[in-house]
């Protein structure tokens, strides 16, 4: 298990302020409220569940579009996912992305964060860019690992949890506010760089009719594992380093005492007695 060799052939380079190339990897996720566990399986039943762009990724898409509008440039939407992820791509293009790359192959299924990052990195190595902006984490698995793993595979610096982003006057650096436990830190770094976007960065726009019409005509490349030159052992379930053993329902809290139509004073007395007995206060 040796070190992964850093990407020697990285083509990203600071291109200056006039024209920015921004890659935004996004993920289509099932709406959490609708998810059910498949009986006796290591997978979740998400069939028929409505799918949306991961909310953190919308901050990334919006940030990229705003930068393009301000500085000029190109926003490239990228996703690894099944054919239906095309809906997510179209929405991001309708918001204002310029073109898209859909990495899709049955062999990509069952990927963990590592084997996802491997696929994204393989494609991105062939591209030119100044910035990569990801969402901080996906709303389904909440791991928040792909961004940093991708940055490492591409040998890029990273700033995670960005809620403010500007390009420095020299056009070569980003200045960001990175969320911390008790506030934020101001972090500066030279492009190319990978950022992960979090809440507060912006208010993602809703696509308008014009945008939706245009989206269908924007360039969309579909790329499979063979085209990328990755073999089955590196990708999807087989390439995953972290394996799911079991999926099970959380221990449900049992509703306990519920007082209805009880005088406030009496209710308060019973509550405090309950808490004191439990040693909670």
């Amino acid at each position: 298990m040796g070190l992964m060799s850093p990407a020697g052939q990285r083509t990203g380079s600071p291109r200056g302020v006039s024209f920015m190339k921004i890659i935004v990897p996004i993920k289509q996720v099932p709406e959490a409220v609708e998810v059910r566990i498949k009986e006796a399986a290591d997978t979740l039943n998400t069939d028929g569940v409505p799918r949306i762009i991961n909310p953190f990724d919308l901050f990334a898409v919006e940030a990229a579009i705003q930068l393009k509008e301000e500085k000029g440039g190109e926003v490239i939407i990228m996703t690894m996912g099944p054919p239906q992820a095309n809906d997510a791509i179209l929405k991001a293009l309708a918001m204002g992305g310029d073109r898209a790359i859909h990495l899709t192959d049955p062999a990509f299924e069952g990927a963990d964060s590592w084997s996802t990052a491997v696929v994204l990195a393989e494609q991105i190595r062939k591209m030119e860019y100044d910035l990569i902006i990801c969402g901080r984490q996906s709303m389904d698995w909440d791991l928040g690992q792909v961004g940093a793993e991708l940055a490492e595979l591409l040998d890029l610096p990273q700033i995670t949890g960005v809620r403010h982003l500007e390009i420095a006057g020299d056009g070569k650096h980003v200045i960001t506010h990175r969320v911390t436990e008790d506030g934020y830190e101001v972090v500066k770094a030279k492009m190319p760089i990978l950022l992960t976007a979090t809440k507060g960065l912006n208010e993602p726009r809703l696509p308008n009719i014009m945008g939706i019409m245009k989206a269908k005509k924007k360039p969309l490349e579909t790329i499979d594992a063979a085209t990328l030159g990755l073999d089955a052992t590196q990708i999807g379930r087989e390439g995953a380093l972290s394996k799911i053993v079991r999926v099970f329902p959380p221990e449900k809290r049992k509703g306990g005492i519920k007082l209805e139509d009880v005088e406030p004073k009496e209710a308060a007395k019973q509550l405090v007695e309950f808490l004191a007995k439990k040693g909670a206060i």
Partner: protein
Amino acid sequence: MSEHKGVWVYCETDESRLRRVALELDTKARDLADKLSEEVVAVLIGNDIERHAEGLIYQGADKVLVVDDEVFTNYTTDAYSKAMASLIEERKPSIFLLGATTNGRDLAPRVAAKLKLGLTADCTGLELNDKKHLVQTRPAFSGKVMVELVSPETRPQMTTVRPNVFKPAEPDNSRTGDIEHVKIQIGPDDIRTEVLERVKEAVEGMISVDEAEIVVCSGRGIKEPENLKLPEELAKLLDAAVGGSRPIVDLGWLPPTQQVGQSGRTILPNLYFALGISGAIQHLAGCAGADTFVAINKDPDAPIFENADFGIVGDLFEVLPEIIAEIKRVQSER
């Protein structure tokens, strides 16, 4: 893989102060290491942090690796991940635990990718299975499901662990162990990000929801920012933190540091008060682990009651003053 030995804990410091999660993980690591007959190794990286080493031994570590240098004053992904990866490569632990803090979750995937390791984030449970593999349990899909994961083929088995899950043991001052200083060369070109400034937004004197044993959390039902005085009074009586649900933080009534829920903080207090909170799944994802859960809401059908050990259906502004008065009365009798 059998050459990999030792349960490692990354003991995060923040401005030279040790984070509490380090003690929690040290305790859990001791438990795992005893079952594996391996050593617990605590890793301290920072500037002026050696003084924490002894306490980590009292907490269960057999050895403390101290990487103390000015270059580590501010957390930077590049410097810390380089240091961490080189220690792991050289010494080959079998398990490596980090706190699922902002920096822990930035550092862990970077190190994992450098060494091509499986990684799980934000675990709430850690056990060994019959093959002595580390089974990492965590919630997914906003807490709707729990998932168990293993990294069967890569060592160390690496995971970030949610703060406030494991309780730190009482320190044992009679424990002894080794403290080893390690020098790691970080050149100026190794660090590609620059921290220009650190800004604290937490209001002076406000207790953080992450570390408080009792949290008093308000939702939309509080109606006006002035009304927060009431939960604040309750919080003061109980040394509790004041929290808010997403809507009231979005309105700016409380700083983002106090937000409880999926897009805010996940907390595991001993006692949680949900005041005027309906109980959306995104909110519950952040607080359902509380030992004791109290809900007050006008709506008898609010989902929050399904989670509450003690629920009161009623007007917050009538019930809360009575609770405050009753607690004062009980406290004065003690």
